[in-house]
């Protein structure tokens, strides 16, 4: 890993995925010490209370509940449909949007507040212009 010529490990699909390529990937948020708001991605100012330098990194949970969703049937070329676009409230704070997988995309199978796990896997085979692979997060119905 210190050798510049070595192939890079998979990159995080978004900056708030930490530990990509290790055995401990996780989602990271930033929590405001002033008002408790939780954000995804780095920032130094809280847009809820205006607090400056009140934010600290917070490791987000691997579990959560389904808050809302849609089932996408029509998308851009190359994107496999149908899939479930899910809004998940993570236990302990933070809300994240992602694909809910491992369940047939039918409203009859989904219920609000159903418990889900956060898992990490290859980003559907997508690679960037340099040919790098990426790690993404997905949701799966809790075991």
């Amino acid at each position, binding site marked *: 890993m210190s050798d510049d010529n070595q192939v890079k490990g998979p990159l995080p699909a*978004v900056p708030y995925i930490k530990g990509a390529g290790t055995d401990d990937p996780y989602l990271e948020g930033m929590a405001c010490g002033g008002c408790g708001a939780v954000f995804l991605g780095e920032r130094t100012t809280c847009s809820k209370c205006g607090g400056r330098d009140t934010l600290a990194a917070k490791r987000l949970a691997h579990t959560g509940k389904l*808050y*809302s969703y*849609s089932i*996408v*049937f*029509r998308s851009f070329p190359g994107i496999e449909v149908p*899939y479930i676009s899910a809004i998940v409230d993570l236990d302990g704070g933070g809300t994240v949007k992602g*694909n809910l997988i491992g369940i047939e995309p039918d409203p009859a199978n989904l219920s609000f507040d159903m418990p889900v796990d956060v898992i990490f896997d290859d980003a*559907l085979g997508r690679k960037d212009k340099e040919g790098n692979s990426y790690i993404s997060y997905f949701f799966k119905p809790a075991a």
Partner: protein
Amino acid sequence: MSDVYVVGVDMIKFGRFPDKTVPQLGAQAALMALDDAGLQIQDMQALYCGNLGQASGMVGQRVLQEIGQTGMAVVNCANACATGATAFREAWMSIKAGVFDCVLAVGVEQMGKGLLGGAGGATGIPKEGLLGSGTMPAVFAEAGMEHARHHGTTFEQFAKVSVKNHHHSTMNPKAMYQIETPLETVMNAEMISYPNTKLMCSVNVDGSAAAVLVSEKKAKELGMKRAVRVKASVLTSDPYSDRDLVMPDVNSVTRIAAKQAYEMAGIGPSDLNLVELHDCFATAEILHYENLGLCADGEAGRMIDEGETALGGRIPVNVSGGLLSKGHPLGATGIANIYELCTHLRGEAGARQVENARFGLAHVIGLGSACGIHILEKVA
């Protein structure tokens, strides 16, 4: 401070005009509004021009290059789908501030077909379809499903919005589509993003609308016969709410705008005779019944079931056909709503006329987010 009046307003029939340019479409509506006011371009002191697709393209100046280069001030406005209302509001504000007496507001858009939103992937890999969907049908479907989780709203209830608005548009000669769509047709149409089927998505069309706004002093000089009073003009951005940055919150931004608008106009929702609200998707209309205070929270499903928002109902919503059927050329919609309200307040809406219309409310949402609300009053 005295009131501001609309003395001329019009829109082109929405459609697809690939042989026209954006400034040509804008100029068309501008001339129609000027004719409606009985005024010339030389009488205008400023132009506020709303367009999204060419937001950095000096569309306002290019409109004047079509119809009258008088050297007037031009501001090009962009606020996503609230662009037209923003242009109208800026015109209003310039008169309220006493800077101008007579101002033109134009909204114009030329759109391709296909999905809106879901871009992003400038760095790394595209996220659409990987981290959920950022397309507009999906975003507004998620917002609708949030309403379902709180209030048990059904796919059928959302679909009824399309039935109603498509029916209304059969009475609007300016609408892009004028086709009845029974409930089964709406629900069985191609599913785009559950629960929004193709007939529950607003139509991408080309269109333009324009309004001439004047000060009270100027309105009295011109004669008040067809003038319409602007009782409220409000613009808000998305206030902090817990999920807003991940799941855009169109409710909070509308609620604070509605409260301000009712206060400014000195009326309540029960005083309204008609509403043109932002039915970018059928799911959105249901949310806005409650967001605009047309009913209590949780009552929107009942409202659509009982026909309260149909022409002839307690509070007609989107009798123009709405964005769903009239069409949604992004920059023009905010002023097309004003045209619809004025037409009813002037008693000129023909088959779709809301009887004894005195107060109308126009509402738009631009995702990202902005909310523009105007309340107009018939001049007695």
